[in-house]
Each structure stands twice: as structure tokens, then as C-alpha cells.
């Protein structure tokens, strides 16, 4: 499962292939959509919760509130079913999807929406191995950092086309790719801890203002 982007995505993989998957794109309804998708994917595959032997979850980076929905659900399901929970950087999942969909000839970027006119991004070689990142920053600064304008997958490529070469598929991470990445160990497998990349917005209180006229 992955909730690090507007796509709420769930898939069931049996170690050999994806048995069922479902994705709904809605940036504001992660809490509502996720668990019904989990139950419907299980049902579609004719599987029961007790059949699960491992859970894979996207650990971001992504907008915090949505990201935590998947992590809270995955960690809780893992605790209840007493099975391991694996984390994968969501940008790696998109990169894996891009390699499968587009077979890029050279290096490329994955960029997702970090809001505030910034993207979460990482750079990959043609095989989908991460070479730079993950980082958060303005899309327009990426080409300078990498020394080249590269094609890019992810929603960030669509939001800031001026900063990238041609847009690659996919726009969002797919849980089917996430599951395959974990089964194939095609990216770094991480603990299920959030990659926030930003500190909470909070400042200690300033000196008080005068209330006297």
C-alpha cells in the first residue's frame, strides 16, 4: 500500500505475480479510501487477511498527513497479524514503474508534488537505481544540481514541465510496482518509518506584543 501521493493504491502479490490491485486518486480522502481498498483487493484475489505473510508500504517522501495514513495502517496490520512490514521510498516505486513502462535510454528523475512550489525528487540511472536523493526543493533547481535537464516521471514532471525533459509514465506510484520491488528486492528495503524530509512548521513563540495603546 502507498498513500504518499494523491493516489491511494493497494495490491496483493503472491511472490510470483500481482493477484489484484486497485488505485483511487483523491488527495483528500486517504483515511476513507485505504482500508476499503485493502478489503476489496483481498476479496478480488479470493484471499483472507490471515493469508498475508508480509506488508509493503511506501514511506514517502510525501505530504505528511496522507503519508501517515498508509504507515499507521501498515504498522498496525503488521502488529496484529504479527508479520513483517517493509518500507520502500515511494520515488523508487515510481522509478521502477517508469523503467517497466518506458525503458528509458538514460538517466531520469522522479519528482512528486511537495506543495509550496517544491517537489520531492530523486535521480535514477536507466536501470532504475537511485543515484541522487531523495531531496525536497524547487523543481527549477534540479537541472543545475544534476548538470542536465532530464526526463522525469511522477506528478512533479507534469506540474513543472519547464524544469524537466519529456514526462515519463507513471504519474503516481502503483502498489503493484511497490509489491514487485519488495519481492524482487529491486530497491533499498527500509523500516516502515516516514521520510518526511521537512521539519514541522513551528516556531517558538515570539516576544509578546503590547496590548496597551
Amino acid at each position, binding site marked *: 500500500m502507498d498513500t504518499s501521493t494523491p493516489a491511494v493504491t493497494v495490491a496483493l502479490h503472491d511472490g510470483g505475480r500481482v493477484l489484484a490491485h486497485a488505485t483511487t486518486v483523491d488527495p483528500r480522502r486517504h483515511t476513507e479510501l485505504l482500508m476499503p481498498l485493502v*478489503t476489496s483487493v483481498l476479496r478480488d484475489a479470493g484471499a483472507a487477511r490471515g493469508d498475508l505473510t508480509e506488508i509493503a508500504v511506501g514511506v514517502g517522501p510525501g505530504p505528511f498527513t496522507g503519508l501517515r495514513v498508509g504507515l499507521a495502517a501498515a504498522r498496525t496490520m503488521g502488529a496484529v497479524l504479527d508479520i513483517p512490514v517493509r518500507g520502500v521510498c515511494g520515488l523508487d516505486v515510481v522509478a521502477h514503474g517508469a523503467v517497466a513502462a518506458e525503458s528509458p535510454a538514460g538517466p531520469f528523475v522522479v519528482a512528486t508534488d511537495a506543495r509550496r512550489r517544491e517537489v520531492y525528487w530523486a535521480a535514477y540511472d536507466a536501470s532504475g537505481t537511485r543515484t541522487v536523493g531523495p531531496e525536497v526543493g524547487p523543481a527549477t533547481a534540479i537541472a543545475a544540481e544534476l548538470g542536465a535537464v532530464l526526463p522525469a516521471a511522477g506528478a512533479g514532471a507534469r506540474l513543472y514541465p519547464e524544469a524537466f525533459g519529456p514526462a515519463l509514465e507513471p504519474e503516481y506510484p502503483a502498489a503493484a510496482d511497490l509489491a514487485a520491488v519488495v519481492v524482487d528486492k529491486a530497491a533499498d528495503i527500509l523500516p516502515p518509518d516516514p521520510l518526511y524530509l521537512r521539519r514541522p512548521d513551528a516556531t517558538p513563540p515570539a516576544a509578546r506584543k503590547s496590548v496597551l495603546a
Partner: protein
Amino acid sequence: MTVTDQPLILGIETSCDETGVGLVRGTTLLANAVASSVDEHVRFGGVVPEVASRAHLEAIVPTLHRGLDEAGVTLGDVDAVAVTAGPGLAGALMVGVSAAKALAVALDKPLYGVNHLVGHVAAEQLENGPLTDPVVALLVSGGHTEILQVDDIATAAQLLGQTLDDAAGEAFDKVARLIGLKYPGGPSIQRAAIDGDPSAIRFPRGLTSPRDMDRHRYDFSFSGLKTAVARWVETAERDGDAVPVADVAAGFQEAVADVLTRKAVLACQERGISTMVLAGGVAANARLRELTQQRCADAGIELRQPRFSLCTDNGAMIAALGAAVVERGLPPSSLDFASDSSLPVTEVLVG
């Protein structure tokens, strides 16, 4: 029915800065595990929602295990899951709701999304047994300040009044800062006030003028009180006088306790209700308790109040409300319910 015959309800609470997991059978408390992020908010002088949400994610599974251990039960024993659906901080609520849904699916047990405010009232049932008659509840904390009328804990609650600006607990925090006391303000002000004279400085009682009593009979406002304290302190400083911290603390605390209890007692009297429940973190304030007890006694109202650990936000209160809802045979919430940061109190159980 003996206690062990009653369904085992697990409650999850994450509406503010406490991650709570409670276990309850009927009105019997089995466990009340709480992890608080209060220390992480100290340097900000108030709860920072993102800091609270991050802490909930880290605390939820460990607190779940702690609650089960405390109750001496296993997950397999749990019959139903209840969770705070709102009101509260949006991002914080979502962590608990997400975990609760995952828990319900993984256990294949029904899930009940319930109202946090009514949960505070349900907590009292764990202390002194079932509430049988309608009650007026005075809820006072850092996040809310309300007078509720609860006719039936599982199905019928209404809002009589609430703060129009700051919560009472927030006012304590802000005034504590004004007079150089530590966050959280409640305990700091209470401590400072012990040596003060509550009648030395008379601070205003918000929304108590005849005109305000027409339009905002059971409502509260603490922003004027806060400004009055600031004005008083600043004037003293400007004149080169030492600020009498103890008297300011005592006078402020008295103003808050006075207006809270006066309106809650009035609600009981005008609605013919003879039981009051006092809950929320600020209910720990000794002066508020004392004045409430005194005024309830004078008015012939029975005051019911849970112990402090059941007054502050906790999972047991949510489990207690879940137990009441289950006992009534109400249908579980659907798995796609949304958390609602401004869930109205009339919605005791979400669909």
C-alpha cells in the same frame, strides 16, 4: 451479566496530543495506556499539530501493546474497536482512525467511530457506574470548553454552549506565559495561585452581561480575560511595579472557574437536570473542582467526576463510549467513514 460476559472493547484516541489505547468491558475499566507528546510542545508554548501527528504515528503500536498487557488480554479477545472520529486536530485524528480501521480489518471485528466530546462523559461511567438520567457535562481542556446536555450516552447529546474563542486551557497557557510561568499553564497557574489572593484583582467574566446572557447564555469567551490580564501586567511593568504573580494567577483562575461553574449550574437549573459531569484536563484544577462542588451542592445538583487520568484525553473514554454503543446494538461505522475535525456533538456515532 458478569463483567467477563460483556464484550471487550478497545478504544483509540488521537485527537490532540495524547495517544490513548483503552480496554473496557461494559463500564469496567481494564486498561488505560496513554503516551503524551506534551514535552515536545513545551518550547512552542502550545500544541503543534504536526508535532502531535508525528508523535501519534510513533506511539500508536507501542501504546496498543501496552494497553493489552495492562488489561491482561490478547488481540484475539477484542470484540470491537472504537476510535475518536472527531472533533480534534485533523492530521492527528487521521492517525488514530487509520490505525483503528487497520486493526478492525486485521481482527475482522466491527469498528465504531465515536465522538470525542461524548467520550469524555462516557469516561465518568468507568468511575461511578452507568449514567441513567440526563446530565449536563462541563468539558474543559486545552482543546475545548463546552457545556453539553447528554440525554443518552449512546444516542443523544447536544451542545448547549461553547467557547467563542480560546479554550479555557489555552487561556491558562497564554496567561502563564504572560506572567512568566511554564507551559502547560494549568498546573503552573494553580501552583502560583496558592499564595495569591483571588479577590485582590478582579478580572472580567466574559459573556456574563445581561445582553450577552441573552445571546450567549451558555457560551464562553476568554480572549477578553486574557487581554485584561495582559493589560494589567503591562501597566504594572510600565509603572515600574513588581508584578504580583500569585495574585494575578489567583485572580485569573477565579475568573475562569467562576464563569465556567456559574453557567454550567445555570444550565442544570434551567433544564431541570440534577446531575453534572465535570471532565477534561482543566477539570484537574483544584479551584475549579472546589467551586463546582460548592455550587452544585448549593443547588442540589449531584456532581460526578472521574479521576484525573480519565479526565484528560485517553483511549478508555473512547472504549467506554464504544461499549455503550455496542450494548445498544447500534450498527458499526462503515469502513470508509471520514475523520471530522469539527464533528458535531449530536453525532455520537458516525455512519
